[in-house]
């Protein structure tokens, strides 16, 4: 879907701002909202750029920076923290060679943190795009990342 098609789908109603931004971001191959995206959304809805920017930066699901093919979101809420998410995050940082909020050079992975993703029974947990991974151990991290690397080839 092009940006224009998304706009038409939702119409010019201001309360649709969040959903338009969701769709625009999902359609962007780099999974983010570019400055141009925000400007176009603002134009379409008759809102100021600063307003749209303000909303986009308020919610954690929107990114204003280009992201990788796979967005890894590690849960760091108290349940996962208790069950060892800090070790998982350290392992990911080590294995991917990037910090939190950064993307690998090959543009494959972006490492992010998230609050509770609601699969606390299998803590520590993370999501890669829309897929949840639970019962994580540092050893499994290496496997999962390698699997994704193969998948991308």
């Amino acid at each position, binding site marked *: 879907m092009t940006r224009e098609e998304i706009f038409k789908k939702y119409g010019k109603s201001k*309360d649709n701002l969040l959903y338009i931004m969701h769709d625009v971001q999902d359609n962007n191959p780099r999974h983010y909202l570019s400055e141009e995206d925000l400007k176009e959304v603002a134009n379409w809805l008759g809102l100021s750029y600063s307003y749209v920017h*303000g909303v986009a930066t308020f919610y954690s*699901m929107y990114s204003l920076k280009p992201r990788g093919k796979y967005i890894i979101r590690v849960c760091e809420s108290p*349940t996962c923290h208790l069950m060892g998410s800090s070790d998982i995050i350290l392992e990911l940082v080590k294995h991917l060679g990037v910090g939190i909020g950064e993307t690998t050079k090959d543009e494959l992975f972006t490492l992010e943190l998230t609050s509770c993703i609601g699969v*606390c*029974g*299998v803590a520590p947990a993370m999501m890669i795009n829309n897929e949840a991974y639970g019962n994580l151990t540092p050893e499994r991290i290496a496997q999962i990342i390698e699997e994704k690397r193969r998948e991308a080839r």
Partner: protein
Amino acid sequence: MTIPRMHVLFPFDPDTLLSGVKEFEAALLKELKKRNLENEVKVLETGSIGVTGKGILMVVYPEGVYYSNLKISDIPRIVEEHFIKGRPVKEFFLGEVPARFVKREKLGLVREQRRVVLENAGIIDPENIEEYIATGGYEALEKVLTSMKPEEVIDEVKKSGLRGRGGAGFPTGLKWELTRKAEGDEKYIICNADEGEPGTFKDRLILEGDPHKLLEGMIIGGYAIGASKGYIYVRGEYELSINRMQKAIDDAYKYNILGKNILGTDFSFDLEIKKGAGAYVCGEETALIESLEGKRGQPRNKPPYPVTHGLWMKPTAVNNVETIANVPPIVMRGAEWFRKLGTEKCPGTKVFTILGHVVYPGLIEVEMGTTLRDIIFNYGGGIKDGKKFKGALVGGAAGVFVPQKLLDVKMDFDSLKEYKAVLGSGAILVLNEDTCMVDMLFSIIRFFKHESCGQCSPCRIGTYELYTLINKVRSGEAKEEDLEMMIGLSEVMNDSSFCPLGQSLIMPVKSAIENFREEFVAHFDKNYRCEKCRR
């Protein structure tokens, strides 16, 4: 028509999906076809049964056998032994079967749950409206629309004593009455499914396991308050919930359960899903309304309350998922039936999530007033790996650390209040003896610091200062006065913050420091070693 002699149920939830239940199901169907059993064995997909971390699960009726940790290579054996020869394969049985997911079946277990809102979850196919109807679904709606006035519905809910399950425990009937009586040409009912409280996934189970029950409750609520439009605000992260709910709404329109002149009556009602975008504070009802209007999710000044000035400043009732799911059973079975469950002031059941260092992490629905000890040791199976119990964080991140001596507290709104604790979202995070309380409190403060919306200074600055202080404790640079400072600061935040986010930090901070003070004090010593605090 052939009537199948066996039913195979696959609970679909994020846990089983990531274990590959879809591939397993496809392989089983292939095997059944190969052996000409496809008409004899019916395979169904259901919602979660509340069991987590046990790989692919499969429930087989009529025996009511629970299989777990299945692999595709096990299929031929199960089909051969169980489906053909009638001998369930014990080897794959779900270990020591915890009582909590046994519902109607009797497996020689002593304990049973009391399921009301989750009565169908894991039993019916959530994507099939006819299965919901077959369990008596939408009968309550029919009863309401054909034989009850809106005021009578409100009266029944009031009489039932149902209180909001989102955490605050406000009487639902009263909320509806206030919305109904508020002046306004248009009114709205909103379902708060922005389940963001860490350690909570009860609403997800309803959304994914029995979406039509929620729909039915919403339509009844809309009728009662005089709304013709409703919204379900779901967390953006809950992809499966959104898809299931959307399917349910689409089907309901096809069956004339939503839309114009529902079931041939004069009542018309439309329902729409709205998707969040990741902000904990949007669980607060006025922030949720702001977000629905396409703005930053910052809480509004109260009063006026949403019952008079809600969405688009029109009268609006905002109810939690679990609350609304209680409505159809109340209407159908009556307020008196409902009052027999739970305690006098908190009738009904409550869904709890039991997590952390327990043998069976997962979810249960039991009567209000069940003791914490019962929940942790009987339903949760006690502490994992033979360790000792240290404490439990009850009510989510905005909850209270409960020490051993309070294990016999009854889990309902009022009993917990006596101990300055809260029921909150019903999340119970169990901590074993090895847990570092400083580290746990650190995790909570970090969460609040991240989620503070920044609108008011007590919360924005307070969370930051608390974060600095807890880090001082972690690194061994704190003194006694820093602990007093933390409690004092959270008290100020409680008095002066704009919304419950900043107001609630007092609970974890105070309960952690007061109940486990020695541990905080031990961290003052430079030579103290703590693996969790990484020193």
